[in-house]
């Protein structure tokens, strides 16, 4: 190098050292690392472990599902095809049902999850009296001049069949309290907000009416209905029966058949069900757990057999590509 290059050297020497990357295990990509390897032991352990965890869970789920008693009764056909009539159904209890017995109504082909339907509500007006004039998003069940509370399609199409139960001519009370989510009652539906202009002319009468003297937070049927279902077939809680039903009890249900499912050909079912720790009667979960557990054990078995038939010593260099395909190729 020519001597002339020497002059900036001294000034650059400090710069030089500052350019030197600082050593750290991070920057040199040498951080201590856990490098797990799928050894046969690990593989078999994992599969066996899944097996022995899932099968008991599956059995527990199944037994929980079996504890649940459920009676469902389709009534739209028997009570129809007109609405606004009363009809009576008799249900025989097959097994003892301990209270609380939950009463559900079930609809199908009802698209509560349709985008147009889901959006057709206004949470503001439901919550605060001061925002009672809010009608945004409620189209076409909205009226700016005479604001509707609750507005929107969901509220407007409120389910309005009613059931009256009696066993041996003794009326059974249906408890309609606490069927909605607590947070909905406490926070979403105002205790000072009262229904206004609801089901009055605009676009015709849809579903149920509301008691204008009760605040929304106590209109639990509405609150339940407003939690839109994920699927077109859905159940919603109607109420609770707080007495036990004995075997062979015949429950007489007086149904006020108001709700129009005939137009779109949907069914209406009345469901009585108990619950377990898991919720309703859900056999699928237990079966799925059992199946998966069994498959895991089976795979574990397969691997054991394979490892016995065709063992590969771990880290055996004979399996390196250059030893397996000498003369090139991977």
């Amino acid at each position: 190098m020519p001597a002339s290059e020497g002059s900036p050297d001294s000034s650059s020497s400090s710069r030089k050292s500052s350019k030197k990357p600082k050593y750290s295990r991070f920057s040199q990509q040498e951080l201590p690392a856990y490098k797990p390897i799928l050894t046969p032991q690990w593989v078999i352990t994992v599969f066996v472990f899944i097996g022995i965890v899932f099968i008991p869970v599956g059995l527990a789920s199944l037994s929980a599902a079996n504890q649940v008693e459920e009676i469902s009764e389709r009534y739209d056909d028997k009570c129809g095809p007109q609405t606004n009539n009363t009809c009576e159904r008799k249900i025989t209890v097959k097994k003892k049902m301990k209270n609380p017995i939950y009463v559900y109504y079930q609809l199908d082909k009802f698209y509560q999850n349709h985008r147009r339907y889901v959006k057709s509500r206004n949470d503001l007006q439901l919550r605060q009296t001061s925002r009672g004039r809010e009608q945004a998003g409620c189209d076409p069940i909205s009226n700016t001049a005479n604001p509707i509370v609750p507005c929107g399609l969901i509220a407007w199409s409120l389910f309005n069949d009613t059931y009256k139960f009696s066993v041996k001519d003794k009326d059974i009370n249906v408890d309609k309290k606490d069927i909605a989510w607590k947070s909905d009652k406490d926070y979403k539906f105002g205790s000072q907000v009262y229904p206004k202009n609801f089901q009055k002319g605009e676009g015709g009468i849809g579903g149920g009416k509301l008691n204008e003297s009760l605040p929304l937070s106590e209109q639990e049927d509405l609150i339940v209905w407003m939690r839109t279902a994920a699927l077109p077939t859905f159940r919603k809680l109607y109420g609770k029966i707080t007495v036990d039903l004995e075997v062979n009890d015949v429950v007489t249900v007086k149904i006020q058949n108001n709700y129009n499912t005939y137009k779109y050909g949907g069914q209406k079912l009345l469901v009585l069900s108990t619950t377990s720790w898991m919720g309703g009667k859900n056999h699928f979960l237990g079966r799925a757990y059992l199946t998966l557990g069994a498959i895991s054990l089976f795979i574990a078995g397969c691997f054991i057999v394979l490892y016995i038939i065709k063992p590969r010593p771990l880290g055996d260099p004979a399996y390196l590509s250059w030893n397996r395909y000498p003369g090139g190729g991977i």
Partner: protein
Amino acid sequence: MANGKIRAKLKRSSLYTFGGCITPQAEDADGPHQLQGPGYSRAVFCNQPQRHQKKPYKYVSNYISTTKYNIITFLPKALFEQFRRVANVYFLLAAILSLTPVTPFSAVSMIAPLAFVVGLSMAKEALEDWRRFIQDMKVNLRKASVHKADGVFAYKPWMKIQVGDVVKVEKDQFFPADLLLLSSSYEDGICYVETMNLDGETNLKVKRSLEVTLPLDDDDSFKNFAGTVTCEDPNPNLYTFVGNLEIDRQLYPLDPTQILLRDSKLRNTTYVYGVVIFTGPDSKVMQNSTRSPSKRSRIEKQMDKIIYVLFTLLVLISIISSVGFAVKTQYQMPDWWYMPPDDKNLYNPDKANLSGFYHLITALILYGYLIPISLYVSIEVVKVLQAKFINQDLHMYDEDSGTPAQARTSNLNEELGQVDTILSDKTGTLTCNQMDFLKCSIAGTAYGLSASEVELAAAKQMAMDLDPQDHDFERNLPSNNAGFNNGRSNHSSEIELERIIRSKDENHHKPVIKGFNFEDSRIMNGNWSREPHAEVLLLFMRILAVCHTAIPELNEATGSFNYEAESPDEGAFLVAAREFGFEFCKRTQSSIFVRERHPSSKEPVEREFKLLNLLDFTSKRKRMSVIVRDEDGQIFLFCKGADSIIFDRLAKNGRMFEGATTRHLNEYGEAGLRTLALAYKKIEEADYSAWNEEFLRAKTSIGGDRESMLERISDMMEKDLILLGATAVEDKLQKGVPQCIDKLAQAGLKIWVLTGDKMETAINIGFACSLLRHGMKQICIAASAEMLSQETKEVVKENILMQITNGSQMVKLEKDPHAAFALIIDGKTLSYVLETDMKHQFLNLAVDCASVICCRVSPKQKALVTRLVKEGTGKITLAIGDGANDVGMIQEADIGVGISGVEGMQAVMASDFAIAQFRFLERLLVVHGHWCYKRIAQMICYFFYKNIAFGLTLFYFEAFTGFSGQSVYDDWYMLLFNVILTSLPVISLGVFEQDVSSEVCLQFPALYQQGPKNLFFDWYRIFGWMGNGLYSSLVIFFLNIIIFYDQAFRKGGQTADMAAVGTTMFTCIIWAVNCQIALTMSHFTWIQHFLVWGSVVTWYIFLFLYGMLSPLVSGNAFRILIEALAPAPLYWITTLLVTATCNLPYFAHLSFQRAFHPMDHHVIQEIKYYKKDEEDRIMWTRERSKARQETKIGFTARVDATIRQFKGRLQKKHHASSSPMSPV
């Protein structure tokens, strides 16, 4: 500087017979150029820059800029760049449409991620451009001495220099612009220019000013100087220039010898004056540079294809959705009394087709989650971090120059892991361009004990290989070799190797003296006089000291002389002569003075050699001679030249040492040294004067055949020589080059050398860095100069084609599996090859050859060859170089690597990666490339997996909502999915994943082949991952739907609503994809653990916090976790079930794959895991050596070949001993 003055007085032209002195006559031959018409419009008013301040003579300033943007253009241009990506355009449209009622999501959830992603990318662009700007400014602010007025020169930054300025450039400075040479410190106005940055040639070029401007040789003379240059317009042609200089109404023609080009450097000349002709972007070198193309890696291109696949899928399911929607709307919606038709067209049964069309847009937005918006930005983040790691790597930090490696663009990190062919420049890249005198053979005796780097490295490698590997061979070696040693004591390369192996542990002294690395006490310190043939030794050293064109310069500090030589070889000879006691100390017009230190006398004797003639070196003659008269009046011709040339010209009685010398020359060649043979003859006075007369006549003759006449006459003199010996000079390779080439070859990379150097030099370097070896069959393709000048193009082409076909035939017919071919082609020939369809034949031949060397190639040709390889083979090419002449190829190649730390920055500025030393290339490719490739490949696969797994659940849900476009998830979940909840783990995969540690990467070069073979990003793998995504989406959706179908999920009897189902489903997705990535990773530092499991935890934290917000914000998700889901066992059980079901097949596949079809890195991981490498060192070493690709180049191959040869001989010897009659 008294010394400089003396030198300056020297008329250099007298030293030259051929090159330098021809030009003056040229002006007599043809008058001023006729410059008319387009292309010759430029006028330069010398010394009157002010006249160039207004049109039409206002030319561009000397400011150069390589930036992509400026402040004004940044926004539009950078935005345009961003929206060149299809996916971004899609998201932009989606964001715009999200403001209309068709949107399924809130506008914020569409616009925010897009703004984030685009903003981040643009910020990165801005940062990168800013760095480029800083680099430009460094060049622009260099200072140059410019004539102000009245003979006063002052320093100005380069960017302020204007056309017409007179500039004074001093020794070792770069020319700031293209200059017209006016005068120099030499009386006859010549100067020496190093054009390494332009064409990579290291020998100095002579430039010569016009005679009319010669008097302008000091500052004062520019007071009143004025002149006008009319010349050609700016053009990229480096070797032409046409123009006239008008001074005092007198026209003088100009040609390229008067032009000093920007980026070349003034050497061996104290100063020159020049007028600026072309500035900044107009200068030839800038005209030559092409805008650096924005490069994209193949993986990214392939990724685009995947995105198209996903787009197709997106459109497909959108069409399915909208058809379904239209049908539902038309036939069923009228029955849905609870949903009366609206007056707009979105849900109008009467206009179902229109509604369907609107819905198509909705669906296209809704399913947009199939296209990972954060993919680009995640990749960008990952690449920037990977680049940071490259920059930070201490193993690629050069202590000497203080430069770390630098990833200048982060776009190509993964491409580094897939390189197939490396195209390398030679000078400055492979070699330091510094010669060391290493060995010599005088009078048939080899002197010089130091081993060349190649020998040392080869010996080390061989010793290492032999020890554990070939026991059989090792056992044979000592006993048999002893026999050899007894039999023939003085040569045989095997024994040489043996010796080096033995001496491998001896400390290798670093050369204390630059250019001299010679060790041999037999001739050092005057001991030569005690050797046999002392008189030959004496002559030999005299030739070294006398036969050259260098100038001595006294180094006042040390009292010894430094030499300004035209080529570094010559410098090395002079240093060697000085060390031997023959110090060249003075040169005058007619004499050369040498201080000879004879052992007999203490004081050195200064001897004068009268220089009678100098027959200089041309690449055609390949020799140089001086005719001198010594103090006794005896006339000698001293000659040095290529061995083949010299051997042809020996006298009958001059061949005494020919046999031994030839043998030594072969050894030297094999050891990668540059060799020259030295010879002399005595000339009788009468013979000389007769010859000289003829020579003088030829020299002064005018006409075209003057040169050939001179050549012929020189030729007459240079014969009947007496051979003295040969020299071996090591063209010092950059540190670690042979090892690096060896390693790269073992990793399966092909290496081509493209150099501007002469063929011989290139071949020598080929030997030095083991790209060539003895016994390799060389296919030289070259058209002779006569042919090029005399024959028509067609004939030349045909001739070349024939050479190529012959070469191919030769390769085809070769039976020996170990035979290796080397292809050597020269630039002129290459230009013919490249412009025709011959290039494919050429490429086919080149691919069959183990090494390819292209010499005398212009920068443009380098780029063309690179393109040929890139496009012809379809493989990934990497070009590495250090000078401006490499810019073309660096830009053309898929990856350009610049060598930083040397002077010119052009290569670095054009490059994608800059490293300080060639040897860092190994780590850059084999470690970082390998890692980055796998990281990015896995990362992209995983990205598509997770977005398919997520996006398709949206689609399935549509089927249950009457295709209405409702999503089961909250908008916020979706927003966070890509941006936060799943992005950090995948980034950690892309940044930190290591299949094996860096040491293992280096030890097992075969692992690198996973990249070029693209094992981790082929369609099989991509579709596998997509299939996995499809499977996961099905599992996640349907298990959840079935479980939450109609039954109560809480003990309180409530059934699940959409929010509960959606949230549970989303929880399952978060678990499934994060477990999936944990299964994908094989390297967990705390960071990975933190990010993967942290993401899952973040989801719950988010859900909790989101639930705590006002119900107006969180809607149905209000308190969903604490009130509904967390207390419900069903939620947790479902999560576990879905996660397990999603990942079990992949886990089984992974286990099976690893157990029964392990890949190389699996096995190595296991070996490391069980520490087998420490227990069984022999196995480990054996596997390491097997992991190398079978190579035909590199010194391992050379050692292998030697061993084969050796074994062959042993066998023969064995034969011979059993049948004693046959000769050995």
